[in-house]
């Protein structure tokens, strides 16, 4: 896996036109120093997990542990309050009970904090609107970019920032990459991040924003629009907090990079659940879909789709929708051709040159046509030659490569063939592999190299269709 150990912040700093509240989000994602307020000895306490993440995760900035009741935690000398910090506190990570949050924030502000991540629950979501209103006013009066409350934390793998309170031995952390993910729900966020880590999909920023009391989805989208290390944004939401801000931010973002949204609470039953879950009321499903479309956002209908769509957007953009299919299994090729039509895409017609080249390299019992069936006895050398021809064919815009790892003739070296083809950056390439553990292992390796893989032709083609839909929108909004 690639690891980005560079400490230098990668975000564009040409953002002086943004409101200070949004600019201060860089203290959330790239803080120069943090104070863990509620640092604890107890391994099952949130303040313990977060402090440990920063101490052991390679974070380069100053870490303060705040706890008035103990002299040290995890070998770090504690301070009684954030305002006792020797230096400036850039970002406060708050994990004390709700009734202490306001004073913790005041201390942090006097210590110079520009941002805070308030993990603590017990505010609007349980009816404590007054408590939530207090911290909101405090934050807004001081331009404090406050994430939460009632959230799960923030990740920035490149800067080794990790305030997610799920222990690393329970939830994997993805390596640094191009996908940023904002999630209203901490639980769903945790699942996706864990999946991304397992699948080897790199992540730029992850934030669980909870009650969105101060910083809501609109602020985050506006920030990520100018964040140069973010290539694509994925969002899980139950309801927008600020419709007009969401619309304007999403429009700015989608002119630069894709935005994929999974909106939960669309059924009547789901809507009621969402309202009681985060204290945010979900609007009518159709209006959400219309708003997303108007803002140029792509909608996913399930967690699987959210993940499937997200990973395709790290590929170089393509303008055309002519699909070339390469396979070592005939039936899978036919399914892929059906999926091409179902998604409103076109099956490419190979150029005469490609036809001749394919004919000369293929065994006599294989026919050059799209979907290109290399037959079950294809080895990686046959894949390599066919890939080369298809990559050079200007009649093909996107390559969907089906690899059935189960065949006797094919070995793991096909991975290198695919990676080399992808790294040529001549065309976007996605891989479809359906199968069990052996197949899954190879898929993970490919995903780790930044080649999006899918378990079925239909899921791959759905993602390709979204990929092309966005390319079209971006060229002609």
């Amino acid at each position, binding site marked *: 896996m690639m690891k980005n150990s560079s400490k230098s912040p990668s975000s564009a700093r040409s953002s002086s036109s943004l409101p200070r509240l949004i600019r201060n989000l860089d203290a959330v994602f790239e803080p120069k120093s943090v104070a863990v307020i509620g640092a604890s000895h107890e391994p099952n306490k949130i303040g313990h997990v977060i402090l440990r993440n920063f101490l052991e995760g390679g974070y380069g900035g100053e870490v303060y542990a705040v706890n008035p009741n103990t002299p040290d935690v995890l070998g770090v000398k504690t301070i009684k309050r954030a305002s006792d910090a020797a230096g400036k506190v850039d970002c406060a990570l708050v994990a004390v009970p709700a009734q202490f949050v306001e004073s913790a924030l005041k201390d942090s502000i006097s210590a110079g904090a520009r941002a805070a991540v308030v993990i603590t629950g017990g505010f609007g979501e349980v009816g404590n609107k007054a408590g939530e209103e207090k911290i909101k006013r405090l934050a807004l009066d001081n331009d404090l970019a406050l994430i939460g409350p009632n959230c799960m934390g923030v990740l920035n793998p490149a800067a080794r920032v990790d305030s997610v309170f799920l222990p690393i031995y329970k939830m994997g952390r993805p390596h640094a990459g191009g996908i940023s993910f904002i999630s209203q729900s901490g639980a769903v966020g945790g699942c996706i991040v864990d999946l991304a880590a397992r699948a080897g999909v790199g992540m730029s920023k992850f934030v669980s924003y909870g009650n969105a009391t101060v910083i809501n989805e609109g602020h985050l989208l506006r920030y990520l629009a100018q964040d140069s290390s973010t290539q694509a944004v994925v969002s899980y939401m139950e309801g927008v907090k600020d419709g007009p801000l969401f619309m304007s931010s999403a429009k700015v973002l989608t002119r630069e990079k894709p935005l994929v949204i999974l909106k939960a609470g669309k059924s009547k039953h789901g809507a009621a659940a969402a309202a009681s879950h985060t204290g945010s009321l979900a609007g009518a499903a159709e209006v*959400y879909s219309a708003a997303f479309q108007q803002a140029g956002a792509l909608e996913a209908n399930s967690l699987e789709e959210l993940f499937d769509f997200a990973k395709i957007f790290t590929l170089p953009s393509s303008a055309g929708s002519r699909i070339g299919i390469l396979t070592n299994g005939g039936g899978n090729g036919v399914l892929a051709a059906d999926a091409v039509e179902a998604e409103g895409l076109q099956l490419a017609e190979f150029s005469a040159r490609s036809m001749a080249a394919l004919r000369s390299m293929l065994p006599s019992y294989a026919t050059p046509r799209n979907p290109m069936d290399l037959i079950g006895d294809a080895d990686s050398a046959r894949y390599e030659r066919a890939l080369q021809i298809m990559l050079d064919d200007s009649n093909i815009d996107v390559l969907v490569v089906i690899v059935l790892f189960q065949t006797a003739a094919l070995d793991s070296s096909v991975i290198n063939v695919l990676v080399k083809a992808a790294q040529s950056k001549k065309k976007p390439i996605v891989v479809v592999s359906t199968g069990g553990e052996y197949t899954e292992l190879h898929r993970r390796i490919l995903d780790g190299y930044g080649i999006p893989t899918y378990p079925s032709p239909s899921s791959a083609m759905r993602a390709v269709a979204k990929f092309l839909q966005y390319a079209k929108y971006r060229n002609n909004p």
Partner: protein
Amino acid sequence: MNCMEMIAIQTPPSSRRPALGSMDFGLFSRYRIPILPYALAHDVSSASASAKKIGYPIALKLVSSRFLHKSDSGALALNVRDESVLRQEYARLVALARGDKAVSILVQAYRPGRFELIIGGRTDPQFGPVLMLGLGGIYTEVLRDTALRVCPIDEAEARSMIRSLRAYPILSGARGRKAIDEDALVRLLLNVARLMENEKPSELDINPVLVRNDGIWAADARVLR
């Protein structure tokens, strides 16, 4: 939500809302939304006089908050071709409304359209005013061929609403049919969007919107404050 229906062209004069006769047909004319010619009648002879003035065929519509879905409850008579049918239908509608304090009946031009559309709106708690365009008439609910936009919208967006309907090929003149005046529909959509943004009614229905050779007309409309 106040569920009292305020039908711009149907509010009885006795209602707390301002009376909306042909003189003060405020809301829709203020936003240049053309409604087929109409008049309110309180007895059969004034209905007959209005019908003559408007020109047969006409439609009779019972003005009553008890009959929100007029076509389902039989609270209207369409395509009334002459005075004898008018007298007959007028009597039927009055009987239907028995018990209502002030009965009035709307006399309106009955003109067929080449197409029937629906233009609607609602004020969404998250996104504010939204505008809807759909295939109208009796197919609205069945086909659910609609386009929805969050306001404000510009001309391009209004045009994209029309073009995103599944029925657009038919509207634009497939199989030799006369195409709709797309520019006129764009203007109408922008006018309704302006109404939505300024007045922020909780719901608005203009249904059917008739596409005719002499323009695009609303035949019925209601606003929920």
